[in-house]
Each structure stands twice: as structure tokens, then as C-alpha cells.
């Protein structure tokens, strides 16, 4: 299923799952649980080329067994709000951050991923002193190594220390640097967020 990042809830056609439908007019599809898009089709077929999980495991503390994760196939279970019913408190939601990302950060390197580009990059936040600085460097980086349509707009999101994906630009630069754990750039179909206008030079 396509993951929409718009502000409105996705409106899918009714899916009855074998329920009796007598006497009822509509059956709303459940809201997709947006927080898990790190594992869904946003990265789509490129996920199998990425070795982020592998890299992360090597950085982890001593003695932890490597976590092998098969590439996510789109035939996986539908996502329902609040399912499975594990505690939704922030500590448990942090499960999709790696261990090093969850604790107080030790290094200023964050991974950057652009939608549609197989290989992600890593940047050192200490090299930048403003959002503008960061974004122009990102634009250069990805334009150099990948084919970007000129005039393409991207939305910049960051994974904060609580494990939530947020729009870049909501915090002061210093607060952002303290909080950011990962960055991703998504092709922008929506008119929101921190937009990067990429042009081929």
C-alpha cells in the first residue's frame, strides 16, 4: 500500500475481512500506523540494497548478537493503529532506533537517505552551523551521486531522539542537532515541510 504523508488520513476502500455487512453503511479502513514507515514501502525495493541494519549492528555494544532482518516484503500484515498491543509509550516506540541511536548520542554522525536513491550517506553534524548549511550540502551530495530531476521538491524529515519522524525546521538549529538521529528526504507531493528545490548544475 502506498504510504501517504499528507495531513489527511488515507481513505481506502472498504475491506471486510469476512465480516457480515448487513445493516451497516460503511467500514472505514484503519489508519496506517505512520511511525513504522521505516519498515514499509517508503523505501520500497531499495531496502534490500541497503545494509543500514548491518552497519548499525556492528556499531552496537559488545556482545550483542547480530539481528538479521529479511528485506521487508509488501505482502506483510496490514498495519492497524495500536496493533500489536504493546505499550505505546515512548520508550517502547524507540524500538526502531538502534541501540546507539537510543542512548545519549556519542557521535555527531547521522545517516541521510533520499527516497529513490539506493545508497544512503552519512554526515557529521559538526560540519554545519545552520539548516541552510546542512541542506545545501545535502543537495550537493545527492545531486552528485544520483540522478535528480531538476525542479524536484523534497520534504526533509528527521528521526528525533524519541523515535518520532518530524519535519525538519521546527526546532532551533542547536536543539535540532541535539535531537536528530537520522534524516530522510522524500519526494514532495504535498505542500508541506522543509522544501529543497534541487537543480542540476
Amino acid at each position, binding site marked *: 500500500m502506498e504510504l501517504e504523508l499528507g495531513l489527511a488520513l488515507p481513505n481506502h476502500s472498504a475491506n471486510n475481512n469476512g465480516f457480515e455487512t448487513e445493516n*451497516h453503511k460503511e467500514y*472505514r479502513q484503519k489508519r496506517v500506523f505512520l511511525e513504522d514507515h521505516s*519498515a514499509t514501502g517508503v523505501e520500497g525495493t531499495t531496502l534490500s540494497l541497503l545494509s543500514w541494519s548491518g552497519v548499525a549492528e556492528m556499531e552496537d555494544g*559488545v556482545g550483542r548478537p547480530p539481528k538479521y532482518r529479511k528485506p521487508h516484503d509488501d505482502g506483510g500484515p496490514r498495519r492497524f493503529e495500536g*496493533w500489536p*498491543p504493546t505499550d505505546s*509509550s515512548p520508550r517502547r516506540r524507540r*524500538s*526502531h532506533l538502534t541501540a546507539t541511536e537510543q542512548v545519549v548520542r556519542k557521535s555527531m554522525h547521522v545517516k541521510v537517505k533520499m527516497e529513490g536513491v539506493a545508497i544512503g550517506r552519512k554526515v557529521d553534524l559538526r560540519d554545519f552551523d545552520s539548516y541552510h548549511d546542512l541542506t545545501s550540502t545535502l543537495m550537493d551530495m545527492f545531486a552528485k551521486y544520483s540522478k535528480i530531476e531538476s525542479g524536484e521538491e523534497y520534504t526533509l524529515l528527521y528521526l528525533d531522539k524519541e523515535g518520532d519522524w518530524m519535519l525538519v525546521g521546527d526546532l532551533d538549529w542547536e536543539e535540532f542537532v541535539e535531537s536528530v538521529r537520522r534524516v530522510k528526504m522524500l519526494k514532495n507531493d504535498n505542500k508541506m515541510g522543509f522544501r529543497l528545490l534541487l537543480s542540476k548544475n
Partner: protein
Amino acid sequence: MAYSFPEEVLEHVFSFLSSDRDRNAVSLVCKSWYDIERWCRRRIFVGNCYAVSPEIVIRRFPELRAVEMKGKPHFADFNLVPEGWGAYAYPWIAAMAEAYPFLEEIKLKRMVVTDESLELISKSYKNFKVLVLTSCEGFTTDGLASIAANCRHLRELDLRESEVEDLSGHWLSHFPDSCTSLVSLNMSCLGSEVSFSALERLVARSPNLRTLRLNRAVPLERLANLIRRAPQLVELGTGAYSAEIRSDTFSNLADAFSACKQLKTLSGFWDVVPSYLPAMYSVCSGITSLNLSYAAIPSSDLVKLINQCQNLQRLWVLDYIEDSGLDALAASCKGLQELRVFPSDPFGAEPNVPLTEQGLVSVSEGCPKLESVLYFCRQMSNAALIAIAKNRPNFIRFRLCIIDPQAPDYLTLEPLDTGFGAIVENCKELRRLSMTGLLTDRVFKYIGSHAKKLEMLSVAFAGDSDLGLHHVLSGCDSLRKLEIRDCPFGDKALLANAAKLETMRSLWMSSCFVSFGACKLLAQKMPRLNVEVIDERGPPESRPEGCSVERVYVYRTVDSRQRLDRPDFVWTLDEDSSLRYS
């Protein structure tokens, strides 16, 4: 009554009654007993903060010392209750600050607590001793600083699972040097680092400290010093359990642990480095409760640890334990009473560890005292459930979550009706049940027929028709809480069993087929119920009457006024079924 005892004698007799049920029974005997009892009641438990108002409580019980209260419905833990729904503690705190200057204990669960409330608590009650906030939210570490600074006789500060806005670790340093009364401190849900020296000094000057649960930011290297200062600890929650492998760190830690002869409960264990687990072995034979639900430990290391803990009664663990680890548990821990197995990768499509229904079957076979289970897995069969039911007729709580909702019996592809049917039929003392998997109306028939002691039932993605709900509401004599999501249950069963709802604490139904019209009718018929339609799509009358509401929450209440603190997505309906919303 001429033959009655004098008041003082009755009061003295009543002082031996601690259970609420007994006290409630006593107050029904006659008017004078009611009066005497209410003046000497010291503790109260309010299961639903909207079932009664602060004014009513204060009027009836003028001399309370301890208040325990719950707010949001259980499904709020899974994000099913929208932000801003309610359960604000402040009105209670403010009213009680006036009425109960001698209040000593406040325990809240799933409520919104602000810094203002915490400050009010810290300033209003001269003898305040116990603050327990379970799964609460809305406050920051500034509020904690007020409590630390002002509650001179504080014994317990327990923030279990609460969502605290963590501004800094400074709050801990607000405990004055004169504070030596701490018995229990649980800060495990906080993120920031506190001053380690302040923490060490606090622990050192608290000779009665029995429970210390640290947060993740307390590194392993600091743990030995802390434990050394509190060898009398009974419950310990470590911080991050990882460090570079160094023999001096290890021996330091092992020594510190060996001095703790009274330790019974261990928790924490973030970021575990398995090589450090043996440092605890000296205390393991006394351990009765072990919470490893944050610990990514491979099965082999888990087994080594568990084999040391022969007297284990409660184990919470991630599914990294695997079926083989559960076999070992079944062999080693014959006194096990409670097992919870959590999923390490709840959103993954494929199983990431070899943990199946077999693990649960093993434990049910090997542990004769097992009575409480919460188990997440990815496959289940009727055969396994039947075996489990036959092995363990003494279950009191049985909560099973199969990750894929509506998963059938993986062997036969049939619904899991007969399996759960066996559970309710064999486990005659069952008080709490959560079911998942492919389930038809038949399982509800079994539940209605057999689960006569069932008090709480959680249902998701189950059933075929209203008949399912009807079986439960008409058959389960002891039912107090019923929570349902994504089931094809609707108006008929609800309206046919309206009277039942007054005998229960609450009913939650979300993403079902309950219409707004039925909600109005229910509210009309049952004036002592609050019927809340929680719907974020705008006014319910803007949609056709047959359209299903997103969520409905029905609870009994003696407070006849409508909730004044409703957000704009909650519609309550009063007697003449006119719509009220803010």
C-alpha cells in the same frame, strides 16, 4: 439501635477491615453504621475518575488519608484514545488540597497530571508520603523538583511507565539533606542523567530504602557504588547494563551484589552486555521477580541466568528467550506464577526468533503454579490451547496476542474458537482474558457459558455478528470491564443488554458497528450511564444515523452532571438525548 455497640467500639472493629468490599458491605447495614464507617474510612479506590466527582467523595468521606484513582481506559495504552480526551488530575488534587490537609498517599493511573498539580501536592499536605504515577503524562521534571524539595516525609516516589517531559536531571538534587525517609524511588521512565553524586548521597542517607529503580542514563560503572550504599535493597532496577569488558568493573559489581542479601526483584537491563550478567549470580537464588523486557539477550545467556534463579515467581522477558529458553524455564523454575513474553520485533512481517506456541505449552506443562500469562507470538493452534488449558486449570489471567490479527489455527486453518473455549471451560477461576486470532461468534458462546468469574475481557478483530457480543454481555456474570476493537458488533446486542452495563465499570468499543442513534437511545434508557461518543470526524449528526461511530465509551457514574472537561471530539448525550458538546 439499643443493642448496638458504642460508636468508638464500632470504629475500632471497622479499623480491622481493609478491603473496600468489606467496608462497602458494612456501610449498607444501617444508617448509623454507614455514618460511623464513612468517618473512619482512610483509603479509597476510584476505578474510573469520571464515575464520581471530587465533591461527592469529599462529602461522604471527610477523613481520607490515601486516594487511588484510574483515568483513561486501558486501550489508551495503545493509542486508541485521542490526545486530550480527559482524565485530568488537577480538579481532584485541588479539591482534596482543601478537604484533606492530612492526606498522605496519592496513586494515579493513566491520568493527566500537570506540574501545577504536583506543586499543589507538595505544598498542601504536610505529611505527604506516597506518590505513585503509573502511565501518567502531562508533567515535567520541574514538577518532580517541587515534590523532592517540599515533601519532607516522602517515602515513595514511583513514576512507573509515565511520560515525563524531561527538562533536566536537576530535580533529584532538590531532595534536601534532611530527607532521610525514602523507602521507594522509581525513576526508570526518565531520560536525563541525574547528578550521580546527588543520587549516591540520597541513597546513602536513606536507611529504609527498599526499592530503587534507576533510569537508563545511570551507567553500569556507577551501579556498584549505589548498591554498596544500600545493601538492604529488596527491589533493584539497574540502568544501562553495558560497559567495556573489564575485570575490575566486573569484580566491583559482583562484590556489591553479593552484599545484597535481601534482593528479590530485578529490572532495568537496558543495552545488556551478557558477560556482565554473571556478576549478579550471587543474588539469583533469592530472586523472585525478574523483568528483562528491555533486555536484548540471546537465548543461551538468558537460560544461564534463569538456571540460577530457581525461586523465580515472575518473569517478564522478550521473545529472544525462544522456545528452547522457555523449555529451560519450565525445567528450572517450578515456582513460576507469572510469565510475560514481549515481542522484540512487533512490526516485522516474519518471525525473527524461533518462539512459537510450543514455548507456552512447555511452561504450562512444567510450572504447576503458573496462573498469569501474557504471551506474544506469531502462530497458535487449537491443539496447543487445549493442551495448555488441560495442563493449567488454575489460570487467573490469560492474555494471548498473535501478531497477525485474525490468524487462524496454523495447522488446520480453522478458527481458534475451540482452543479458547477450552481455556474458559477448564480455567474456572479465570478473571482476565485477552484473545486474538481468527475467532467466530462461537468462541463468545463458550465464554458466555463458562467464564462465570471473568472480570475483564479484551477482544480485537473477532466475531461475526451481534450475537457474539450478546453472548458475553448476557452470560458473563462477573464482567466489569469489556474492551473491544474492530469487531462487527453493533446496536442490537448493546441495546438488548443495556441494563448489564450498569453492573460493569465500563465498556469500550472502537471501530465497531455501533450507530449514533443507538448511542442516543442507550443514553436515554440508562440515565446512570455516561455514553461518550469519541469521534474525530466532526458532529455525529452530520452523518447518516446508521453510520458507525469511531469509538464509544460507556461507563456508570453517580455524578449526574455531564463531563465539563470534554474536548470537542467527545459527544455525550443526556437524558433527553439532546446533543451536548463543548
